[in-house]
């Protein structure tokens, strides 16, 4: 709990809800007749609506990217390190929007909300959503908020994939794309990790084929296990080693299956904490969205052809110890952009935190983000003023 709100925080924020009744045709063939998106905004939209930045969230993220919902909150939003007055994504300059994607469990339409057609909770019947569907719905939210062109769209990991899709699908609606610790598609190993995570959820006896809420139950073991697995892949071996090493609970081995090593305790805690805040069906949907994303598949596997439509400037950022989405994966995007003759810059940041580094306030990372966005914003505002 913050005793006082820090000066570089956006402060207390209140989420808002945007209802939509224009049907949304999803990639899977299903059409959502109506839905809602929950979102937060930080900073002020200028008169020309030229200073808006959209933040796309990763696997377990949501609309609460910065600030606090109440003074009693233990933690601020998931990307509070980067968003706020004077921070890398400076809310003194920009109007920042963050939303919870469709299929989420934090207020946007998803498995835990009511299907208006049946009056029942969606649960397992919620259709599979893709990155493309999310981008479409985000564009509709932008319409509602009166934003024709974003100064920038920013996202890490799965969020970066959404940014990439934006640049292809709506090339005139963003001036800059910032893609952090991401990839143009998952590797086989990534898909394999996701499958193990989903199987651990599905095989939990409390899963009830996804209808667990009907049974007043939650597949905590499976979801916890999925998160533990995920957690290992988000950290680097070095970071885990530095944090826990082989530290033990007791002075000697106990020769049992309880917690012997501190890292075991940490993973169990992380797994359990996650089950209290996240929905298992949503976790399955989000990992599926990751698996399916592959914009190059639409252009015979050639990413540079897929990206030929893009008109924005790109900034790619990767982290040296990230093995889930290694620097080489970001470089695949960079190479495709160079081949397509697009404006692109790339920074490879030294970091010990593994994939999670994209959420840390690493000074060089924050400087790169801020330098790039500040110029984009100034340039875009000038262009827009000039056009008026």
């Amino acid at each position: 709990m913050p005793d006082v709100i820090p000066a570089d925080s956006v402060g207390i924020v209140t989420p808002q809800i945007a209802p939509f009744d224009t049907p949304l045709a999803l990639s899977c063939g299903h059409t959502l007749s109506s839905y809602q998106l929950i979102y937060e905004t930080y900073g002020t939209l200028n008169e020309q609506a030229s200073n808006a930045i959209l933040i796309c969230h990763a696997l377990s993220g949501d609309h609460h990217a910065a600030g606090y919902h109440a003074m009693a909150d233990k933690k601020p939003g998931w990307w509070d390190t980067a968003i706020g007055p004077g921070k890398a994504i400076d809310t003194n300059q920009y109007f920042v929007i963050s939303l919870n994607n469709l299929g989420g469990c934090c207020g946007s339409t998803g498995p835990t909300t009511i299907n208006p057609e049946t009056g029942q909770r969606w649960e397992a019947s919620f259709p599979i959503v893709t990155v493309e569907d999310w981008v479409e719905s985000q564009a509709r939210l932008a319409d509602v908020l009166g934003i024709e062109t974003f100064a920038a769209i920013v996202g890490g990991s799965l969020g970066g994939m959404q940014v990439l899709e934006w640049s292809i699908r709506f090339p005139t609606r963003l001036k800059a794309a910032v893609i952090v610790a991401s990839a143009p598609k998952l590797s086989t190993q990534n898909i394999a990790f996701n499958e193990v995570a989903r199987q651990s959820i599905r095989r939990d006896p409390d899963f009830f084929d996804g209808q667990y809420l009907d049974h007043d139950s939650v597949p905590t073991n499976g979801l916890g296990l999925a998160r533990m697995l995920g957690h290992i892949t988000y950290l680097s071996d070095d970071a885990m080693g530095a944090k826990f090493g082989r530290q033990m609970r007791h002075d000697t081995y106990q020769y049992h299956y309880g917690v012997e090593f501190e890292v075991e305790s940490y993973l169990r805690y992380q797994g359990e904490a996650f089950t209290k805040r996240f929905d298992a069906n949503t976790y399955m949907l989000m990992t599926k969205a990751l698996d399916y994303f592959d914009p190059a598949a639409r252009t015979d596997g050639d990413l540079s052809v897929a990206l030929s439509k893009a008109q924005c400037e790109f900034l790619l950022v990767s982290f040296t110890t990230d093995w889930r989405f290694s620097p080489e994966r970001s470089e695949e995007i960079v190479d495709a952009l160079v081949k397509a003759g697009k404006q692109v810059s790339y920074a490879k940041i030294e970091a010990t935190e593994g994939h999670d580094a994209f959420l840390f306030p690493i000074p060089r990372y924050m400087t790169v983000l801020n330098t790039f966005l500040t110029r984009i914003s100034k340039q875009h505002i000038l262009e827009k003023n000039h056009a008026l």
Partner: protein
Amino acid sequence: MRSDLEIIDEWVKPNIRVLDLACGPGELLHHLIQNKQVNGYGLEIGHEDLNTCLEKGIPVLEQNIDEGLQNFDDQSFDLVLMTHALQQFRRPDLLIDEMLRIGKECIITFPNFGHWRSRMHLALKGRMPVSDFLPYNWYDTPNIHFFTFQDFERLCHEKDIKVLRWAAVDGQLKDHWWIRSMPNLFSETAIFHISR
């Protein structure tokens, strides 16, 4: 702009695709993008230089050139540039091959170690030259290969590389007739425009 960069600027055609290796703060690339409407990228690993490029809106990629340039396709650029950096890489000869693979033409500038002052310094003092232009000691210098105007010409000859044109300038980066007449002795910076 520095005169050596002005010379390069004269040689560059408008609207081409340019790759600037070890672009530093992007001075040349910035100029070429602004005035020649080139579509260009810089490669750089210096954090501050990279940031300066981001600030100016010069597309810049963090890439260690010594680790290879395989990610760039054959003949995918009209021009590959390298100003004052060739002497800093492990295998300049192989790097030149790579530059000519990626680019249809290349422009390379380097400090000429055959300059009379360097020769005098080594001959009279018996120590490695330290000058305004090469302000490093032998042990902390990023420049690991020293070569002369003539050495470079000879390498081009051995590798069957065409020298399209060259220029030679002094410490103030100006060209004079006496430098042109004896570039190996009088130039501090050599500028070569080459192709296969």
